[in-house]
């Protein structure tokens, strides 16, 4: 069987090593780390990592025209993509982290600062379970009752129709979103022990 080609989009921020490390667990994929147009276009699925501030992430994406390549791969060629943490937030229309910044505008919604009146201590850091899921492929029985590792101070606010998982942090918080081939998770599957690997497995099964 031909191995699936997975491209981790490298745009100079974040901890890509831990994602590679987690994906190395799967033997039926080839992992490429690149921002090169050819590598992105020829891959079967993409992973958009992100650690750090939204503003520096989006600036780096735009600097090398990676956003244009990603639009082509995701919106025109409909490649499955998984955004992790800030990688998920980049899919929004905008973010208010360190000023106003436009996002990739793939999923309607805004990234807003978490408010201590609504939520508990900020940042939301640690292991939390998903108390609402509505996608049986990504959050199957093996995954949906497990804890995942979160570490963020901003959150994705979007319409109910795009939310596929939520977690309880005094108020309901968006944990995962999906629109067609686009998936984003606020938690870090690469740092969520066995539950995280099971989630990756489910995502990889969506890739044809």
């Amino acid at each position: 069987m031909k191995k699936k080609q997975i491209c981790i989009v490298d745009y100079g921020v974040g901890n890509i090593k831990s994602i590679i490390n987690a994906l190395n667990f799967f033997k039926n994929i080839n992992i490429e780390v690149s921002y090169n147009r050819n590598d992105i276009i020829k891959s079967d699925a993409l992973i958009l990592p992100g650690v750090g501030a939204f503003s520096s992430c989006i600036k780096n994406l735009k600097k090398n025209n990676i956003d244009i390549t990603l639009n082509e791969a995701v919106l025109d060629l409909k490649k499955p993509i998984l955004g992790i943490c800030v990688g998920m937030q980049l899919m929004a229309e905008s973010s208010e982290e360190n000023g106003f910044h436009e996002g990739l505008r793939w999923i309607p919604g805004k990234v807003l600062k978490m408010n201590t009146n609504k939520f508990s201590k900020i940042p939301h850091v640690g292991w939390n379970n998903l108390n609402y899921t509505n996608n049986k492929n990504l959050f199957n029985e093996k995954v949906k009752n497990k804890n995942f590792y979160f570490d963020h101070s901003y959150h994705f606010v979007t319409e109910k129709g795009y939310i596929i998982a939520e977690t309880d942090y005094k108020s309901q918080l968006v944990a995962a979103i999906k629109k067609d081939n686009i998936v984003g998770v606020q938690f870090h599957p690469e740092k969520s022990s066995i539950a995280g690997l099971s989630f990756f497995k489910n995502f990889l099964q969506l890739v044809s």
Partner: protein
Amino acid sequence: MLKKRIIGTLILKNNIVVQSKRFKSFLPIGKPEIAAEYLNQWGIDELILIDVDATRQNRLIDLDIVEKVSLQSKVPIAIGGGINSVDDIRNILSAGGDKVVINSTIMHNPKFLREASEIFGKQCLVCSIDIIKKEKKWLVYDYLNKGIFGKSVSKIISEYDINGCGELFINSVDRDGTYTGLDLSLFNYLKISSKCPIIFSGGIGKPNDFLEGLKHEKIDAVAAANYFHFQEHSVTIVKHFLDNKVLIRNENLFNYKDSEINSHGRLKKKNENILDELLFKKIIMETI
């Protein structure tokens, strides 16, 4: 609901994990990547790796070690030791660290936190404070000069809060390595109003010490170093003890559900009936 965390601290000297006592005496334990591998298998929630000589020797923690240790960790790992620039943080993150732990650099220059948080986000920054008790007063300890630092604990904490602290990592110097339990009196003495999560450490000697810390409303995580290194499955056994007493993550592939432990965290012998049954029990391997 968010779970309370149990964190394993790996203290490094000459790239070897050591047992530390009151920040003064140190005994070798072993290779950090092996300690990380075991703690992961036993179900730790997070790791902290700190090279305690790095700042004094004016260098950054060895990035090869960071890489080796993070390769073994399926849970987040915070790295500390000699960080004093944005490039240091960038290098640690690209070597595999998920967060950084900073102590003396921000103690002398809290503005550095602001600079770092604008680039990496504050969720990446763990601010470490060593505290020491003198005549019933809690003071900030400066480990480089082996003395008391000029600012008060509450002053330091509010400075960190303003400048972009992600988590506070508070270590009691007096209790470090003594196995006498956490000194929670700090929270009675100090009105800590920090909005960010607090990791408390220093003195863990038995499972009940974790419970007392984690039950405290101000404490989000308890870190222990020495405690975890001298007993097989130490983390799993502690989590077995804590389960149903405080909200934690307890979903390791193996557990001690059918076992009893004594107050020191040692396993008691199972009763004869259970042992007899075990002889014929088929255990199915779990797969991901």
